[in-house]
């Protein structure tokens, strides 16, 4: 086990459906160090996204611990937790969730607005990332004017704007065609390499999963090294 990086220790997660409780995750444990990448695979309903959201502090485990750089974030109160997410975590979703009323540049900058930041620095960083994802020529465009692949590239740039220690991707290529998916996947790995953060992706795609050095398969709430 390492002091830095991500540690998932005997994590359980169950949901109440009213009359009964459904246990989605049953004693998940693993660790990952900065600079490493992990793919989580598994059939639908196996708890992949739930695990990703627990790691991303969007939800709290029913039992067990998740430590990020030695900090058990799930115990933080909501305001500090939000700030923790702001500083440490970047998300890429299958459905990019770009804000349609904002331009590409503005969408990339959105995470910087959750807490006060130097506007000029933020904008410079956003421009750099837009350029890095190859969308400089689309910087003032709105999401509706972009292709699916381009939108996901914007989502990737947005996830990286705050230099997160954890980059969490939920089916990042799930809604893309093969070529776009390949392009986005390459971009993810390139940027992961450059940023040196932890990259975790939930995917059904064996092709994408195959590009990760670490792979974890979830089945019936338990994890197995793939």
């Amino acid at each position, binding site marked *: 086990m390492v002091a830095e990086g991500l540690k998932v220790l005997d994590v359980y997660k169950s949901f109440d459906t009213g009359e009964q409780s459904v246990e989605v995750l049953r004693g998940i444990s693993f660790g990952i160090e900065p600079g490493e990448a992990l793919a989580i695979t598994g059939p*639908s*309903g196996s708890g*992949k*996204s*739930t695990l990703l*959201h627990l790691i*991303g502090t*969007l*939800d709290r485990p029913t039992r067990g611990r998740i430590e990020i750089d030695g900090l058990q974030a799930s115990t933080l109160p*909501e*305001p500090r937790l*939000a*700030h*923790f*997410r*702001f*500083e440490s*975590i*970047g*998300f890429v*979703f*299958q*459905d990019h*969730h770009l*804000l*349609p*009323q*904002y*331009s590409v540049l*503005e969408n990339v*900058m*959105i*995470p*910087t*607005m*959750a*807490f*006060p*930041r*130097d*506007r000029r620095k*933020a*904008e410079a960083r956003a421009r750099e990332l837009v350029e890095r994802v190859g969308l400089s020529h689309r910087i*003032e465009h709105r999401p*509706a004017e972009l292709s699916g692949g381009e939108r996901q590239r914007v989502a990737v740039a*947005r996830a990286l704007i*705050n230099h997160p220690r954890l980059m969490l991707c*939920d*089916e990042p290529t*799930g809604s893309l065609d093969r070529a776009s998916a390949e392009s986005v996947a390459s971009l993810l790995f390139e940027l992961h390499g450059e940023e040196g953060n932890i990259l975790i992706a*939930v995917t059904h795609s064996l092709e994408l999963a195959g590009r990760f050095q670490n792979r974890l398969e979830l089945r019936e709430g338990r994890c197995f090294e793939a």
Partner: protein
Amino acid sequence: MFRSLAHYWRINLAVMLGGAVATSVLTGALMVGDSVRGSLRDLTLDRLGRITDAVVADRFFREDLAVELGSSGEAEVAPIVILRGAAVTDSGARASRVAMIGADERFAAMYGDDAGGLAALFGERLEGQLFPSVVVNDSLRRELGVEVGDSLVLSFTRFSYVPRDSLMGDKDPDDVLARFRVSLVEVVPDRGVGRFGLSPHQGTPLNAFVALEQIQRVLGQQGSVNGAVVETLQGTEAGERALHAAVGLSDYGVIVERGVSHFDVASRELVLRDDVAAAIVAAAAEVGAPAMPIQTYLANTIVGNGNLLPYSMVAAVDPLGGPGAFSLTLEDGSTAPPLADDGIYLSTWASKDLSVRPGDTVEIAYYVVGPHEELSTATTELRLDGVVEMEGLAADRDLVPDYPGLQEAEDISAWDPPFPVDLRLIREEDEEYWDEHGATPKAFVSAATGKRLWTTRFGSTTSVRIGAVPGRGLRSSTTAFREALLARLDPAAFGLRFRPVRQQGLEAAAGATDFAQLFIGFSFFLIVSSALLIGLLFGLGVQQRAGEIGLLRAVGYRMRTVRVRLLGEGAVLACLGAAIGVGGGIGYAWLMMAGLRTLWLPAVGSTALYLHIVPASLGAGWGIAVVVILTTIAMTIVRIGKVPPPVLLAGSTSRTSRRKGRRLAWTLALSATVAAVAMVFYAISTGALSSPGIAFGTGALLLVAGLSYFAAWCRGGRKRGMGPGSGVLVGMAARNSSWNPGRSMLSVALVGSACFVIVAVAANRQELGDELMRRDSGAGGFALVAEADVPIHGSLRSEQGRRDLGLSHDDSAVLSRAEVFPFRVLPGEDASCLNLYRPEKPAVLGVPDELIRRGGFSFQATLDIGDAGAGDNPWSLLNAELEPGVIPAFADAGSAQWILHVELGEDVVIEDDFGKPARLRLVGFLAGSIFQSELLIAEERFLEHFPSRGGDAYFLIDAPWDEAAEVSRILESALGPFGFDSTTTRERLMSYKAVEHTYLSTFQALGGLGLLLGTVGLGIVLVRNVIERRGELATLRAFGFRRATLVWLVLAENAFLLAIGMLIGTLSALAAVAPRLTTVHVPWGSLLATLGVVLVVGMLSSAVAVNGALRVPLLSVLKAER
């Protein structure tokens, strides 16, 4: 369908409640109209008891006429004396506009047990009671502050058969006014008999009841009354027939005095009306009797050959010849031939006294009475054509009516006539003549000469001498003549007609103002907001089922099928919601009626307005509401139908068409701006900057421009200025507000329009300031306006007149600095907004020539009648000659439009003194004037058609403004017994304005309520947006945005829309009224409070809505596996 309705019960319940609100407001507004009409009907029935008709004349007629009417079996009749006057208590408390009613048990019977209080009038006096009994209604008791046992003095007009405006009329205030001290024995409540009155008005009258016999005695009219209230048993027409059968010549004031060979037909008014004189002559001709009209007049002096004969009667007659009573005999024994127009006969006594001979010139001087009873002396020269023997006609004392103050005098020096007499002129010879011959005429002129010299508006014949029908005796001739004359005289021409007061009252209860329409207008924004709310709620419901709809479409359902299904659900909700709303409507109407009785009392002036439920209105309200609700729902469904299934499957019901309409919005924005600027330039160049029409037009254009700019902003354009740092929330909120331009526009347009109307309407409250001093203002530059219950004979314009009216020298000196313009008044119904009933017979003022020449006031419009009204002074239109029987008239523009419902050039027909229709053609509309309760015609025309209206009862006083209070005090003190009540023109105008302002307040309150409901709609817009954007919001949370931050973000978005709407609406309205801000009173306090409440409630409702919406777990949205 019902399973769907049950499954989505929460949102369906909300739609239903939205529908209920819309129905409540709509049905409630209809019911307010019903309730006002119903209450006015109730008031009419309450004040009239069993009375269906009334006969109220300007003259006294036999009380027996009423008895005879009753005995005909056609009607139950109660004779009454009804007069208007004033009441004063020992402590000096005074009430004017008091109705004095002389009544007996027959009157009380009209009210059954409700008139129990009047019984105190008919019994014996109480122990220790000094004065006759009076019963007052509670309103009068409160006005005077009296209690049972107190004494008070009633003052009212003493009836005079002789027109007081004529030479022989008595103008002495002590004779004009009857004063009657009474003891208060009972107070009746302000309902039933306590509310008795024959004119429809919702206000409670001030009634004082005295025993009929008592008031007859005070007036010297024993056995006579001036009115009768009737319960017709067979209808008004049958009653009219009975009246025709019962009426006698004495009821018309016509006297038939039989002589030896003839009979004289005269009038108790001393002068026979021309129509009556003509009827007499015609009746005589009908029965074959000779008739000879006679006119006698008093010559102040007859001068001939340097000698003077004082105070002599002159008869104008064309002798018929024949028997002595019809002919004049010259000195030579021959029958005097008809006189030429410039000729005169003198009696032998007179010619001898003057020492004149035929051919000499004789000058006659006589009094002429001016329109305001001012006496002047006129003279005429005539040629002496002969001297007549003092026999036959020349020796007939009966030629001269019984002039009051003359005939009964023992000698000339004892005369007490109502005009000045120079007793120094009276000689011994004159007294001897008086002793021997009384008032026998000393001179004779032709009838034509008499007409030319002495015709007044009252007539030109003092009597008609009628001989026996050839071959018949005088008695039989008289009887035949009486019957013929009675058949020729119409009781209506003497005011003796059945007025179907109950029917008229019930018809007038339909109201001058349609309160249903008024309250629908007031509640407009409430209705629109409710409809919007329904649309938004239904849309929200549909949005929840977007996936279901998308699926149905995806699996092959036709959109039409889906629409029909949704519309079916909507119809069920509409019907149920409207049904609930009908109940709410009753509550809404009850609340509005309570508002009218309390908060908005100045607008209606009656606390007797209560809820009336009319099933037809409930049905109509339900039906209209169902249509409105279904239309709104249908519009939502049609919109949903345009959304592609994939979008629906994704849970959204909105299409992204941001750019669509952007060009249109810009075009509209720029065009409206250019038009507004052009309108301002036009207004500046034409000087019409403060015109309400132009102001409102400019404001409306600015509103359209503002909304269009916002629409253009929403629909595109790169928006800058957002980024991390302070204020980012506001920037993001502003940007986010354009997320769904359609919804945002809907919200901003609703809030903006409502604010515009509320602010523009509120800023229309006109403050009355120094402009009233100007002649072109609504006050015409007059400081005071006054009214008298008892018409005042005599002039307040002259020192002598003021002294005659009892003003002290000092007071007269103060008044000399003021100019008084007296008006004749034809009493009638209030034509202003203070009267809720529709006036059938509005009050009419006779405008004196002095005011017509002076001009003033401002006119909204005048009728172009060619040269007749040409000139700078529109008042000259009142003197225009129109077709026969048509009288030019002015009305206040507001009263004409809203109360009388007449246009310029239309006629208001009223009945004149002769029972004939007088058509008052509206040739001018005064703008916001003090004449809102009356119609105005020239005094000259007034006197032609209403000659019996003696004295002045309305006054405009041009006093120095700083002395107005003092002038008012002096006049009220001196003329108190006349019921003289003066008020400042500002107060008079404010009493009218109070109605307008109250309506504006009502509109502001209900408009504010609508705006409030609109803000709830805004909350729903927000929830829908949040639901559609939940992925976006979840993303923001994933990136570290706190939940509270997101709540604030969405709230700021809502606040932005609310603020933009309020800002656009308010600024457009203020820009519209800017040129008039100095002359209007903007109620900033209540206005800001209304807008503040709207803002706060809007934010609170949004906070609740957003808080609820953001409680939905956002996480699931982010999950790929859904």
